[in-house]
């Protein structure tokens, strides 16, 4: 080793370099020979086992090695008589070289060993390098091949080439090229037309025109792009046809480009005259920067054809028109706003919604409103968060003012229906912000998504604990829609706490607990039933009926036997029908309980049976010493409305030995009863005219439905004056509800009741109202008022209507004349004399009519 170092160190640098070069050369030589030996061995082995290798002699050497040993392989080919360059794939490398370097050497090699494969590449190279043209033409001449041009064409893949130069090469073969246009191979036709198109002869030109109808896309496209002719109209006509009808997009596109490059002045397509398919083709090629095309697409949106709408929408989406359109929506111009919305609805109808983004800062209110309408059903859910965020900002403080109200409500609905958790969190914050706005809470609570208790449950529970909160009914329903597990613990904690929560909060919590209808919460409900009124406790019977088990009965029995008045009364009232039978003895016993509340509850409970024996027990309570109990009995029996109960009430009412207090209780029952026979009983009692007239009048006045009022008016016709006076009082008490019917009496000309009807209307101020209406700006209202006063025919009405002698509407003056005729009074004569000269002929005619009648009626 040391000797080697000494030798190295003793050598100068140039000698070292020379030595290194020699070593490298030796290595390369070594490698060359090794590779040559390997290649020879492989080829020999493959050739020996020719059949098993099936014409495939893969040498598995790099391209560089193959090219290096190209000449050697040629020698071997001659030696063994096989085309080794083709079998080893060397020809492909030569073709690449022709394509890249365009050397004569590689061209000759390709022509010698693989002309079928490389002819087109050589042809293309020859078009670019003149030297190669000679080589190619010599080869063609020597080859003696028939249809050599076709061979060239088919050796390629239909690539484009310079046809003009090719024409110089094959200018003498035009006829062969023309024939090639009839070849069944499109590559041949493509090759030929690419050359012929540069030939000016008539036959070539004619052949090129036919190229527009070629079945191959590639062939059709050549004349579209390259045909030069003086006949511009014919060219335009061909291009227009292809633009509208060609099934290939490439051809249509080329046709349009050609038209707009060379023939724009001839462009005259009228969209309205096109078929649907032609329109679709046209839309596909519209220019995104052309306003004309944009307008046309907007027109297509109104076509009513879904396919056309889709194409137009896609175009408008791509060129950004839809987004611009959305942002231009202005709520200040309602018609324009609705037009934009209609157009965008069409777009949404074909499932194009991505124009709604709402990510920019300055989005108009109109755009937000339209987006909110669309996002209710369509569009990306993620955008709803942006929508809600922006809507809440814009509408803050104007939530109830249109059009902000629509935006506000739609955005919230979008969040509820399709919003992400992020959007729902925003909504939750809004819920908290407007927690004391009752109408908002009542509106929004039913819309909260039930599967998002993780977001809303704690908020709603906080409302339940808030005494100032005022939308409890909807809150209760909303809480019940959530899974019970998310709220139950909190509710039970409220009920169990002693003083932390107020009674009203506990009541509301109990109602929620009851509404949840959970069988395992019966004990909590029963123990807290005292919080509710008896009426409310009654509503829990449905819930309790589901808890039919011995444990439930034990709980009820324990409470009933304990004797706590409040608990007893509430529990009795709330007992379900199926359980009441079980506890009937206890309930009957409770009818004589010292506490009136318990007696009332027991009575309500028994009344539901509606059985004679049990009802009799209730009737006994009509004589209860406590007025409240008597009144409740009346209400119970009235509510029942059964034949037995009404008959019993009637008997009691007409019983001469019954006390006034009991009869008042009966009247209260009859008042609330909906039974149709009750009114007859009351009218009969009124006609008896012995007692309780004031109470009866009040009872009758509550019967103010149309059928009852008609019945009362009918009764008025037949009855005596004192009773009629009572009934007039009754009708006055009914107020507005009866006024319509009274006016009807006037207009139907009921002579019996006319006087009373007028009296009622005068007393109720209706006559005064109609007199005031004579000065109303609306002539129809004035006319109706005049007709009314004319029919009324009282002094007061006369004094009122006389004011309308100067009314500009002749119909009203005619009514005045009729009223004066009705009055038949000398006071009206001066007015009639004046109206004799009225400018309106119709008025004068009526005046003459009235004067004649006045004269006749007052003849002595």
């Amino acid at each position: 080793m040391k000797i080697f170092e000494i030798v190295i160190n003793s050598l100068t640098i140039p000698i070292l370099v020379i030595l290194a070069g020699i070593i490298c050369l030796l290595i390369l030589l070594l490698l060359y020979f090794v590779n040559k030996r390997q290649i020879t061995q492989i080829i020999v082995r493959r050739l020996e086992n020719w059949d098993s290798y099936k014409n495939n002699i893969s040498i598995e050497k790099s391209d560089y090695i193959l090219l290096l040993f190209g000449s050697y392989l040629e020698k071997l080919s001659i030696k063994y008589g096989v085309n080794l360059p083709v079998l080893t794939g060397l020809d492909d490398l030569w073709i690449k070289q022709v394509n890249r370097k365009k050397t004569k050497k590689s061209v000759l090699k390709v022509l010698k060993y693989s002309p079928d494969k490389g002819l087109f590449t050589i042809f293309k190279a020859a078009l670019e390098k003149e030297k190669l043209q000679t080589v190619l033409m010599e080869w063609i001449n020597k080859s003696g091949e028939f249809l050599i041009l076709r061979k060239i064409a088919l050796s390629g893949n239909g690539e484009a080439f310079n046809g003009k130069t090719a024409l110089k090469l094959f200018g003498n073969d035009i006829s062969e090229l023309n024939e090639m246009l009839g070849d069944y191979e499109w590559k041949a036709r493509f090759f030929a037309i690419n050359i012929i198109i540069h030939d000016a002869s008539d036959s070539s030109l004619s052949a090129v025109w036919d190229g527009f109808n070629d079945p191959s896309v590639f062939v059709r496209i050549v004349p579209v792009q390259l045909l030069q002719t003086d006949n511009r109209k014919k060219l335009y006509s061909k291009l227009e046809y292809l633009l509208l009808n060609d099934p290939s997009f490439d051809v249509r596109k080329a046709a349009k480009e050609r038209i707009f490059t060379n023939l724009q002045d001839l462009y005259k397509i009228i969209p309205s005259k096109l078929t649907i398919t032609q329109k679709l083709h046209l839309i596909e090629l519209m220019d995104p920067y052309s306003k004309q095309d944009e307008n046309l697409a907007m027109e297509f949106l109104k076509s009513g054809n879904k396919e056309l709408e889709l194409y137009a929408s896609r175009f408008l989406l791509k060129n950004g028109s839809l987004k611009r359109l959305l942002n231009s929506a202005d709520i200040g111009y309602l018609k324009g706003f609705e037009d934009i919305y209609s157009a965008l609805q069409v777009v949404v109808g074909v499932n194009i919604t991505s124009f709604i983004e709402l990510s920019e800062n300055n989005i108009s209110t109109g755009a937000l409103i339209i987006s909110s309408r669309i996002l209710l059903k369509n569009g990306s859910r993620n955008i709803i968060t942006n929508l809600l965020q922006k809507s809440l900002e814009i509408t803050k403080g104007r939530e109830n003012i249109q059009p902000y109200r629509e935006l506000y409500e739609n955005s919230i609905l979008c969040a509820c229906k399709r919003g992400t958790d992020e959007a729902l969190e925003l909504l939750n914050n809004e819920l908290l912000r407007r927690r004391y706005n009752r109408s908002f809470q009542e509106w929004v609570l039913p819309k909260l998504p039930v599967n998002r208790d993780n977001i809303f449950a704690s908020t709603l529970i906080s409302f339940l604990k808030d005494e100032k909160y005022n939308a409890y009914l909807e809150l209760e329903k909303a809480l019940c829609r959530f899974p019970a597990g998310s709220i139950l613990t909190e509710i039970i904690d409220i009920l169990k706490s002693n003083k932390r929560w107020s009674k009203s909060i506990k009541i509301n919590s109990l109602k929620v607990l009851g509404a949840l209808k959970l069988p395992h919460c019966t004990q909590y409900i029963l123990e807290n039933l005292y919080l509710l009124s008896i009426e409310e406790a009654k509503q829990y019977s449905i819930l309790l009926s589901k808890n039919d088990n011995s444990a439930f009965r034990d709980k009820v029995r324990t409470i009933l036997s304990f004797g706590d008045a409040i608990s007893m009364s509430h529990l009795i009232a709330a007992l379900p029908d199926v359980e009441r039978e079980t506890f009937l003895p206890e309930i009957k016993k409770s009818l004589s309980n010292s506490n009136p509340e318990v007696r009332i509850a027991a009575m309500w409970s028994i009344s539901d049976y509606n059985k004679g024996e049990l009802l009799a027990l209730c009737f006994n309570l009509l004589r209860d010493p406590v007025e409240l109990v008597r009144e409740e009995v009346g209400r119970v029996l009235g509510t029942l409305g059964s034949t037995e109960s009404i008959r019993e009430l009637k008997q009691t009412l007409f019983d001469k030995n019954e006390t006034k207090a009991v009869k008042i209780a009966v009247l209260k029952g009859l008042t609330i009863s909906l039974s149709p026979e009750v009114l007859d009983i009351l009218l009969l009692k009124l006609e008896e005219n012995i007692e309780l007239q004031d109470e009866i009048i009040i009872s009758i006045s509550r019967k103010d439905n149309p059928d009852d009022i008609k019945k009362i008016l009918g009764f008025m016709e037949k009855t005596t004056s004192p009773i009629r006076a009572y009934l007039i009082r009754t009708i006055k008490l009914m107020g507005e509800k009866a006024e319509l019917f009274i006016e009807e009496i006037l207009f139907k000309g009921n002579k019996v009741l006319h006087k009373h009807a007028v009296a009622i209307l005068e007393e109720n101020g209706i006559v005064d109202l109609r007199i005031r209406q004579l000065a109303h700006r609306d002539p129809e209202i004035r006319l109706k008022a005049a007709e009314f006063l004319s029919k009324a025919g009282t002094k007061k009405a006369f004094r009122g209507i006389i004011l309308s002698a100067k009314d500009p509407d002749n119909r009203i003056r005619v009514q005045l004349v009729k009223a004066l005729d009705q009055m038949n009074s000398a006071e009206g004569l001066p007015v009639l004399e004046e109206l004799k000269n009225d400018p309106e002929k119709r008025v004068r005619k009526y005046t003459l009519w009235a004067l004649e009648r006045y004269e006749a009626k007052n003849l002595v």
Partner: protein
Amino acid sequence: MSTAYTDLLLEAGILVNNAISAQEISNILIEYANSGLNPDLICLYQYENTLNSDMKLVSKRGFNPTPEYLLHDSELFCFLLESQQLVCLNTLKRGPFEELILSDQMQSGLAIAINIAEIKLSVLILNYKQPFSFRRNEIQYLEDLCFIIGKYKLEQE
């Protein structure tokens, strides 16, 4: 109103209640108008077939010649239908109601439109040879008679 008129109205009401045709009711109207008001001429005009045509004379008491048709565009006719009121003319005078006098010898008259049994629109005209031949009671009687007859509805028709 006098008792005599009340009795006549009562009788007319009973007869109308038993009537079975519009023709019968028309006869009752003519009869009771005639016996209650004693005119010198009484005529009942009715539509023949269609509305908007002239009305034809269908019934008459009195010898004086009268027009066969009441023209549908005459002022009197239009006023009667529009106002649904009784029109009277105390003396012979020019004006919108002069057509009410059907004959030269007549001086005063009454006219009223009535929908007999709610199905047959008719116009009843009474004429007198003397002016001022009717007063309040006569007018009231005729109005009430027409009210009774107009309210009645035939079951058969």
